């Protein structure tokens, strides 16, 4: 055997060593796999530590190792670490193989003997496989400095501004007619009670005016092709029926439009808007949108009031959907969340009992720019409530709906209590499971509310009803809750109930994830590359996530994530080019029979057929390395780097201990 292989078995503290006899495995590898080229096998407490890496580097230099197998955690965690260690010692990084004996052995098995045997099998597979590894060089492609930001909420705005300020171009795509997101709907922000619009709208204006930002609202991404550094994105621009070149945003069309409809997006169903509308006064861009479904002209063929009064002739009823293609190098997804629909919990009476409000409805009620001018009133629009109950965890921390904590609702509910106190002097009852106030200044805010005289009742609300049992309950909403601190059922008669509804992933989160090639958790939140160490990147290179799309979070955290994603993008742009895993297929023209079976298999159109030579050829820039053509070629003319037939067949040999059996008549398997 010409190769000199080093095997390194990691203890990972007790994570691996607690179940697998790591010393025994290393001894076994040194002895039994010696004829296969293993010259050294060591175990170490933490292979990924700098001392562990130095151990490998030293052996490469002193023993002249030509191959390295590390048995530790998943390659998705530390493959890069060990490849770099090899590179530092002058060994081609692709001659290093990381096999997982933590995620695949010690963490999932309980029988120590069987786990140790499996660890041996996995190492044996890795050793056989690495004999067939070839030195590879990563492919380098230039990075397009333009970036796509999807979603114009606070996270997306922050990301776009940071990148644009750094000098790179940003395409911002927003589904709604205006950017701003949920934050534009809120009244005050906790715990500082800043006016939400006052701190948000300057950022919106900056994005709207920035020379480096192309703002595309009322638009959606419909196609994503390519890879990190070179994505081709298709954006559907929905028709506004307003020529934005001519429109000045004067608002006369909105004023003259005779058709009023309930605004269930921005005003959360509490207010009305016109069929021709600008969603809110500070909207960016200022262009109105015509709601075709509700427009009298589109329904009946007459009206055209907007066209008649438009001073610049900007109304265009003939506008069609447009598909725009842009090239970008990287993508930030900041598509946010949606509110849990409390209709799904009929026991709380939302939709049936008029004075049960959602948290978003209350934000609009309390907002000075909202439908009531900031007056907190009942659904009749006049009466001020004298008592208010706030129900926490509606749709969160509930196995029937969402098991997770929505993270922001406690603070939001405390904020509501404060606003009710301040504006109405009503009694406020907070019905909570646990109060969670973990961030800066949050618990101080909770203490403040305790001092303001809010009643805190620890218990999950069972029911909200309008059926009275006593004269005091007459005409009231009755909140039925067990106060678990005194162990008593309570019936609290109130005028208004606010449901602190859960944050949920957007309805189409899964389809959007598929479009961008990233994955969702079972809940539907997008999965980050690493939950602790890389919460911004995704498993798809060049696609980042920011804000509530990754999981429920408050404004400061969303802003921090937006900025962090921008920093990652800018960091890549500075590198000017990106290294791509050299996992590619190639065709040996001498073996190719020109049957063209592979041609139709490739979803990336990477395989070209040369009519003149009657052979197929793979374009390495388009090939993504899936290997389907390799498996399909009847002539065996296609080989895939990193995952060649020889490598995989050898790994099977190793996993089944055939390598050891051939040399040793005693079966090496445990059973």
């Amino acid at each position, binding site marked *: 055997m010409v190769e000199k292989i080093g095997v390194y078995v990691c203890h990972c503290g007790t994570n691996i060593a607690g179940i697998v006899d790591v010393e025994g495995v290393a001894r076994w590898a040194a002895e039994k796999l010696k004829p296969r080229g293993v010259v050294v096998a060591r175990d170490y407490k933490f292979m990924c530590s700098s001392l562990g890496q130095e151990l490998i580097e030293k052996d490469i230099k002193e023993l002249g190792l030509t191959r390295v197998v590390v048995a530790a955690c*998943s*390659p*998705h965690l530390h493959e890069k670490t060990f490849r770099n260690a090899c590179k530092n010692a002058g060994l081609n990084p692709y001659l290093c193989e990381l096999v*997982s004996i*933590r*995620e*695949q*052995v010690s*963490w*999932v*098995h*309980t*029988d120590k003997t*069987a*786990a140790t*045997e*499996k660890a041996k*099998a*996995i190492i044996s*597979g890795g050793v056989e496989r690495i004999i067939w590894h070839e030195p590879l060089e990563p492919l380098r492609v230039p990075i397009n400095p333009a970036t796509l930001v999807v979603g114009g909420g606070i996270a997306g705005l922050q990301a776009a501004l940071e990148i644009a300020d750094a000098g790179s171009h940003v395409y911002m795509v927003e589904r709604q007619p205006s950017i701003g997101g949920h934050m534009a709907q809120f009244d005050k922000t906790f715990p500082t009670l800043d006016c939400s619009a006052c701190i948000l709208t300057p950022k919106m204006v900056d994005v709207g005016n920035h020379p480096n930002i192309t703002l595309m609202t009322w638009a959606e991404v419909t196609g994503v092709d390519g890879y990190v550094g070179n994505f081709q994105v298709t954006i559907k621009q929905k028709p506004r029926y307003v020529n934005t070149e001519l429109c000045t945003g004067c608002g006369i069309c909105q004023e003259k439009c005779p058709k009023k409809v309930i605004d269930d997006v921005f005003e959360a169903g509490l207010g009305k808007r016109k069929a021709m509308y600008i969603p809110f006064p500070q909207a960016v861009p200022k262009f109105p949108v015509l709601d075709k479904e509700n427009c009298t002209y589109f329904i009946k063929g007459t009206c055209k009031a907007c066209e008649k009064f438009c001073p610049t002739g900007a109304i265009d009823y003939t506008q069609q959907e447009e598909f725009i293609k842009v090239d970008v190098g990287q993508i930030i997804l900041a598509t946010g969340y949606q509110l849990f629909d409390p209709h799904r919990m009929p026991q709380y009476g939302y939709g049936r009992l008029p004075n049960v409000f959602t948290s978003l409805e209350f934000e609009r009620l309390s907002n000075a720019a909202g439908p009531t001018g900031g007056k907190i009133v009942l659904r009749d629009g006049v009466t001020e409530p004298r008592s208010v109950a706030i129900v926490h965890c509606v749709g969160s921390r509930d196995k029937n709906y969402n098991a997770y904590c929505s993270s922001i609702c406690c603070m939001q509910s405390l904020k509501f209590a404060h606003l009710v106190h301040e504006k109405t002097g009503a009694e406020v009852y907070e019905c909570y499971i646990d109060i969670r106030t973990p961030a800066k200044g949050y618990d101080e805010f909770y203490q403040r509310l305790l001092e303001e005289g809010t009643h805190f009742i620890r218990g999950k609300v069972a029911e909200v009803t309008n059926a009275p049992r006593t004269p005091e309950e007459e005409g009231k909403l009755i909140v039925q809750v067990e106060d678990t601190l005194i162990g008593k059922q309570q019936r609290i008669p109130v005028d208004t109930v606010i449901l602190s509804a859960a944050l949920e992933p957007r309805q189409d989160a899964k389809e959007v994830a*598929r479009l961008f*090639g990233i*994955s*969702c*958790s*079972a809940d539907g939140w997008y*999965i980050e590359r690493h939950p602790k160490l890389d919460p911004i990147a995704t*498993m798809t290179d060049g696609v980042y996530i920011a804000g509530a799309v990754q999981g429920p979070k408050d404004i400061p955290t969303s802003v921090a994530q937006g900025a962090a994603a921008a920093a990652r993008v800018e960091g890549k742009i500075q590198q000017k080019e990106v290294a791509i895993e050299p*996992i590619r297929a190639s065709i040996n023209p001498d073996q190719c029979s020109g049957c063209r079976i592979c041609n139709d*298999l490739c*979803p*990336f159109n990477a395989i070209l057929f040369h009519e003149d030579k009657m052979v197929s050829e793979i374009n390495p820039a388009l090939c*993504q*390395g*899936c*290997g*389907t053509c*390799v*498996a*399909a070629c009847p002539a065996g003319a296609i080989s*895939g780097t*990193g*995952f060649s*037939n020889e490598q*995989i*067949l050898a*790994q*099977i*040999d190793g*996993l*089944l201990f*055939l390598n050891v059996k*051939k040399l040793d008549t005693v*079966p090496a*398997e*445990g*059973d």
Partner: protein
Amino acid sequence: MSEQTDTNRPFEPVIIGFTCNWCSYRAADMAGTARMKYGPNIRLIRLMCSGRLDPTFVLKAFAGGADGVMITGCHPGDCHYVEQNYKALRRYILLRKTLVQMGFEPGRIKLLWASAAEGAIFVEEVNKFIEQVRALGPLNWPTSGNVEEMFAIPEQMMIQEATS
């Protein structure tokens, strides 16, 4: 001839599992991170895509002593490479037919779709498959892992039959 010498111990099947880099391998990672438990009988191989699965790999595993083979990939429509798991599906169906014709119990091979978030499903299905193969008993294919040899055996038998 069975190699089981210790009759008191239950038969422990050896299973080779093929995973794709993007979904099912990550499901296995997730099972690990969440400390879910499954039988140590399965040994995994990482491919970039289930579409990379050459049927030879499966035959090789059986020939080399595996009692069962599990092929896993992304859910239909979720493939990192657009649609290559559909090609894996087609190959799986053909391969299973071939194996049955060769005298294999169809229960020795299994196809599973598992997304990166479905660690629990991965664990459940692996455990089910282990029990399924355990019930079928050892395969004991008497070859040394050489796929050509597998096909050579019936040929020799035919010659023997013809000459006797």
